[in-house]
């Protein structure tokens, strides 16, 4: 199909509909408002559910109820709103209720600002809920990828019976770009959910319970070990990344989302200057794509992590690095969107320093 020009937030909303989203529950917050606004109109037109919840806390718990009853469910918010959802996310993961959660990140901490940022990497990949749990988390770079991943995420959530987080940012939310909403991606019809509390215990022949409580610690440990197996499966199957000009690179950027996109421009400029830079672009940020670091060419000597934060993903880079490469970092935070030139300068300064 032809590409259509859409605003990021609206494209995300439409992608959710295309991905099979049955119900949306959310609470307004900048810079993601066009997403619920779009759905308030179009979910109804599609005979689906849209509810503006009284708060983010209520929204995530509505997600729990609807997802636990078998529906494909979406919620979206931005940074402080995601903080409020942490208890609910821990419940969703603990009870293995699938759902999709979009975070259109803005600057923090606290109320912070409303400009685009990536300072919720920890919030998204480590969670702030309690317990040993994980959520799949994808960080797309442009609208097409965002749309594709959101469409697919409902399928993934169902397959793993787990929440999936989308790490977007204010840039992706507010920009317009042509997107192909029909581009095939791994979108499957919702599977049968024999575990769901649909209110049909009679038909089914047994009761279903959506529960994260295990009063016996041995049961709770067993439950956690079962979950861990699933997480390990995700680590195996869902590491996603793109390698950009790494084949002969000396300095390899590690950057995701909007920052990766900006870094692409810097790579062009630097390559024009004959400086061999490349990039590992994590698309999944949980699981972090450790595989991408496995077969880097001998030419590589430094990993330069780039973030729209003061350095969060760099921890994952350190974890995977284990002393192999020199590590460096460049970041802007608080809603400042860096210019490619700043990255170019950073690299030039590094070369300078090395000489």
């Amino acid at each position: 199909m032809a590409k259509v020009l859409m605003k990021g937030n609206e494209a995300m909303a439409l992608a959710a509909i295309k991905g099979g989203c049955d119900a949306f529950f959310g609470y307004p917050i900048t810079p993601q408002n066009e997403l619920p606004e779009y759905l308030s109109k179009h979910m109804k037109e599609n005979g689906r559910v849209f509810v503006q919840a009284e708060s983010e806390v209520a929204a995530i718990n509505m997600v729990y109820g609807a997802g636990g009853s078998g529906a494909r469910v979406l919620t979206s918010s931005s940074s402080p709103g995601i903080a409020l959802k942490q208890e609910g996310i821990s419940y969703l993961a603990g009870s293995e209720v699938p759902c999709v959660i979009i975070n259109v990140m803005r600057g923090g901490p606290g109320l912070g600002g409303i400009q685009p940022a990536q300072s919720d990497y920890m919030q998204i990949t480590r969670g702030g809920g309690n317990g040993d749990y994980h959520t799949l988390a994808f960080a797309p770079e442009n609208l097409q990828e965002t749309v594709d991943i959101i469409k697919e995420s409902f399928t993934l959530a169902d397959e793993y019976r787990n929440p999936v987080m989308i790490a977007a940012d204010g840039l992706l939310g507010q920009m317009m770009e042509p997107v192909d909403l029909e581009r095939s991606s791994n979108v499957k019809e919702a599977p049968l959910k024999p575990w769901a509390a649909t209110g049909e215990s009679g038909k089914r022949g047994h009761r279903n319970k959506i529960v994260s409580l295990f009063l016996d610690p041995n049961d709770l440990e067993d439950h956690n070990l079962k979950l861990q197996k699933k997480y390990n499966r995700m680590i195996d199957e869902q590491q996603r990344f793109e390698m950009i000009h790494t084949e002969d690179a000396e300095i390899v950027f590690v950057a995701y989302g909007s920052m990766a996109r900006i870094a692409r421009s810097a790579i062009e400029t630097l390559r024009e200057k004959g400086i061999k830079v490349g990039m590992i672009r994590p698309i999944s940020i949980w699981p972090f794509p450790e595989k991408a670091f496995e077969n880097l060419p001998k030419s590589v000597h430094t990993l330069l992590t780039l973030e729209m934060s003061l350095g969060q993903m760099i921890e994952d880079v350190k974890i995977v690095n284990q002393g192999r490469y020199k590590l460096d970092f460049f970041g802007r935070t608080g809603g400042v969107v860096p210019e490619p030139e700043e990255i170019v300068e950073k690299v030039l300064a590094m070369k300078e320093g090395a000489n």
Partner: protein
Amino acid sequence: MDTTTVYKPGKGLTDRKLSYCPGCTHGIIHKLVGEVLEEKNLIDNAIGVASVGCSVMSYEFFNCDMHQAAHGRAPAVATGAKRVREDKTVFTYQGDGDLASIGLAEIVHAAHRGENITVIFVNNAIYGMTGGQMAPTTLIGQKTTTSPFGREKAQAGEPLRISELLATVPGATYLERVSVHDPKHVKKAKKAIEKAFEVQEKKQGFSLIEFISTCPVQWGIQPYEATRWAVDNMIPYFPLGVFKDARGGETDE
């Protein structure tokens, strides 16, 4: 001899031993809900939402599909479930700490949206589960583990009356406060539950039945004395009765 069974444990509850302390009226309320579920043929058609409190395990007791909600959030969970399963009967079972304290916004807003769900609200004037702390419904002068000198108005305010508060919310259709301190009131309480589920079946909106309940263990008295304490102290402050009936048409009171 030829006999007719006039009372027996029904199928609305599972066979699991209830986890409540001896003589706790949570059990009576469970039975009533179970009976209504059974009599109205809802067991195979209902989604219940357990809350966090002594009734946290009620997902093991009600014999239908169940969710276990985070503390205070049962009305939000029920909203999610009902919106995607409109034809199912959805109910929550919540204590007074759960509903009147941490979950106040969720219950008011479920009522405000006119969610077509039924809430079973068990008011025992205390946090049973966590060891007898003060609840919003704790009476003035009542000693609890966090009001060791008795609840004082100056420090903690006067108890919140939830049915009265919800009566001001347009979306609430049926609100009644009942008690289970003797057989007569138990019968009345069951009628109230029936009405509430009927409201939901007729898609008339939000219904809530508030139960005056006991907590012998945290009140530190015997179960029967606890029912007397409820009659003597709670009911005067939390009067029984219908606080809202916006069912329209032929109402019965």
